[in-house]
């Protein structure tokens, strides 16, 4: 049974697209068939983070408006066979999305994939409303700081009221993913404590992704961090989070950067 997962946050710049790419790749690396959809029409990024920007011919809007078939718009990843992308349109805006069209596409993708991951735009308007509309599971991405936590709280309220599941009175599964976590700053009291974030948001924790240069480096080379540097701290945190999404019990730790040997440094340069 396919699962539709929305990666959302309310606030921008907290790591939704990075998380979509990393979780999508991690699930695909584990043998699941995965499609990631970019709902950020007009400000698309997921294609860049996945290194597929030059391969986009048809996009989500073309399919929503019936100008292209789904099979024509899906872009298969070159590194992981079971990972596909449905890109957003850069030249249109979010009004081009219709609820009926999005619902039809998601129903069609449910037949073909194990996971349908919707990368929500920031905000609480049409784009993010439609990204969460048909979801079964939500990953709420939050940075340990007050504005991000409050925005996430707002989004959780919307997940519990505006999704199709919520309207039918069914339970919406929600997970919290804390990103850009810096243990040293938490110790110094410069960030909200994890326990405080959990207390405020009161949804189960899926994982804690440490702040790392590897994330930025992976984005710049157009490869999800779990593929680009699978042994790095953020990649290990994402791989653990993906296992938890599949129902595995993995002890909650914050991976730390292993001291990179000369060999792996050389190897990474080459990549």
């Amino acid at each position, binding site marked *: 049974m396919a699962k539709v997962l929305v990666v959302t946050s309310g606030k921008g710049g907290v790591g939704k697209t990075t998380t979509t790419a990393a979780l999508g790749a991690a699930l695909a690396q584990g043998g699941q068939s995965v499609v990631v959809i970019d709902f950020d029409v007009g400000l698309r990024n997921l294609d860049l983070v996945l290194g597929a920007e030059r391969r986009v011919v048809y996009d989500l809007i073309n399919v929503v408006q019936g100008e292209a078939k789904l099979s024509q718009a899906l872009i298969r990843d070159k590194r992981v066979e079971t990972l596909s992308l449905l890109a957003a349109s850069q030249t249109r805006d979010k009004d081009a999305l219709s609820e009926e069209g999005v619902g039809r596409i998601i129903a069609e993708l449910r037949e073909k994939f194990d996971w349908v991951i919707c990368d929500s735009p920031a905000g609480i308007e049409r784009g993010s409303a439609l990204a969460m509309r048909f979801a079964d599971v939500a990953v709420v991405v939050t940075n340990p700081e007050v504005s991000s936590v*409050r925005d996430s709280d*707002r989004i*959780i*309220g*919307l997940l*519990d009221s505006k999704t199709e599941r919520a309207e039918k009175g069914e339970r919406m599964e929600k997970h919290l993913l804390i990103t850009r976590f810096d243990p040293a700053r938490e110790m110094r009291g410069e960030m909200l404590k994890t326990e405080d974030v959990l207390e405020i948001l009161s949804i189960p924790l899926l994982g804690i992704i440490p702040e790392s240069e590897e994330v930025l480096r992976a984005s710049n080379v157009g490869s999800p961090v779990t593929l680009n540097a699978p042994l790095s701290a953020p990649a290990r945190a994402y791989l653990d989070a993906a296992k938890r999404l599949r129902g595995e019990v993995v002890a909650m730790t914050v991976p730390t950067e292993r001291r990179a040997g000369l060999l792996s440094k050389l190897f990474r340069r080459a990549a």
Partner: protein
Amino acid sequence: MTSAARPSIRFRGHSLIALVVVPEEPVPDWLAHLDALAQRSPGFFASRPVILDMSHLPHDKDSLRALVGDLFARGIRVMGLEGTEEAILGPDLPPVLSGGNPTGQLDIPTDRIKGQANGNGTRRPASLLVDKPVRSGQSICFPDGDVTIVGSVSSGAEVIAGGSIHVYGTLRGRAVAGSGGDPKARIYCRKLEAELLMIDGSFRTDDEVQPDLRGRPVQAWLDNGAIAIASLD
């Protein structure tokens, strides 16, 4: 200016729940049922606004007048009519109402009401229970009575109650108690971090709360028109 010399006329909107009575044929049998009901539950119609819905009963001016008279004889005063035509009514009959909102069926009490029935005595005390957190951006509004929240009220959320507010969790958002003008309403919470506390129009923001009360279980009430806060432990 003549208007300055005259006191202005005051208008006020008012909404209330009316009892809609739907007579059916044959009328004598229906009236007999009504008598039986009134005997079982004395006071059922007392102080209740009653609307007569004539849509199920063919009628003319005379039969309508007779029916209204029959009801009046039973102590039921009809305040308005539905399902009939303006044209057949005279000045001696209640007006046709429009713009009302239909509500659910009313449960007719089957047990004999014990003791003296009075107008308010039969009404259930109103309260609202919310057993999940109130998230940022959500607003719980319950003008009819107390609100109890089992969970926290987030920053950017608000709870408005006609009566008191009880929060079994952290109160971070806004709490407005006694919204309909009740100075006796109170606010209770297990952990005070509220952005705003308001009781019957008087308020206190977070800045005005004594620092030693923050994070504590407290109650807030109105003391001579000003909000007082005291720890509960």
